[in-house]
């Protein structure tokens, strides 16, 4: 039997429809999908392609932790998240989040919550390949700091 995996890191193109099927059921009245794609220009600088790397087992564990956090905040929501790693070209899909719920408000809110948390706690890294060089995003800007040596827990500070 094929077990449905709600939280996945993959190295192949993501099929959006698959995630919709994972969260669809007779009880839901709304499904939102967030599709994160590779952007060509950031602050005027041209990206040629991106390279994503993950600590795969931990990343899947953290994605499912986000699922648990959502269950606590929105008990009737159901979430599926797939993130792609490897080399991605402009316009390729890097991440898809599907959230279903009986009513639309929850599906919208929980979906936004999921992408914000991915950017905080999931060990995935993006390397920019520009025309004139490369950089692992997040390691030089120092816009993100972890005073306690770990990410901020949901509900802490902010």
């Amino acid at each position, binding site marked *: 039997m094929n077990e449905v995996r709600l939280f996945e890191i993959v190295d192949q193109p993501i099929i959006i429809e698959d995630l919709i099927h994972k969260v669809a059921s007779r009880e839901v009245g709304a499904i939102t999908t967030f599709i994160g794609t590779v952007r060509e220009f950031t602050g005027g600088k041209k990206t040629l392609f991106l390279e994503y790397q993950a600590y795969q087992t931990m990343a899947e564990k953290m994605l499912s932790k986000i699922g648990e956090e959502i269950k606590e905040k929105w008990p009737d929501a159901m979430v599926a998240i797939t993130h792609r790693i490897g080399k991605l070209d402009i316009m390729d899909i890097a991440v898809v989040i599907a959230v279903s719920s009986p009513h639309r408000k929850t599906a919208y809110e929980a979906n936004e919550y999921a992408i914000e948390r991915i950017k905080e706690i999931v060990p995935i890294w993006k390397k920019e390949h520009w025309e004139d060089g490369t950089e692992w995003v*997040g390691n030089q800007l120092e816009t993100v700091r*972890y005073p306690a040596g770990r990410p901020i827990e949901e509900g802490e500070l902010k």
Partner: protein
Amino acid sequence: MIHILLFAGIQEELGMDRLEIESEGIQTVRELKAYLGQKYPSQVLKQSMTAINENFVTEEEEIKEGDTVAFIPPVSGG
């Protein structure tokens, strides 16, 4: 033995994706970071979070024989 995993910027700085060290004399994450920082000068290590056996921990966390310690540079998924 402590198993250490390196990713992204640290992996590139140190030129390897894993290493193993004898745990003797190293009891906490802070001590491990100090030890590695001396041996392998790394800017990214200072900014990194730490996970032991796939759970985020603080610098005070104790490291046990056989643990897998991963250094997690600021993440940039999504």
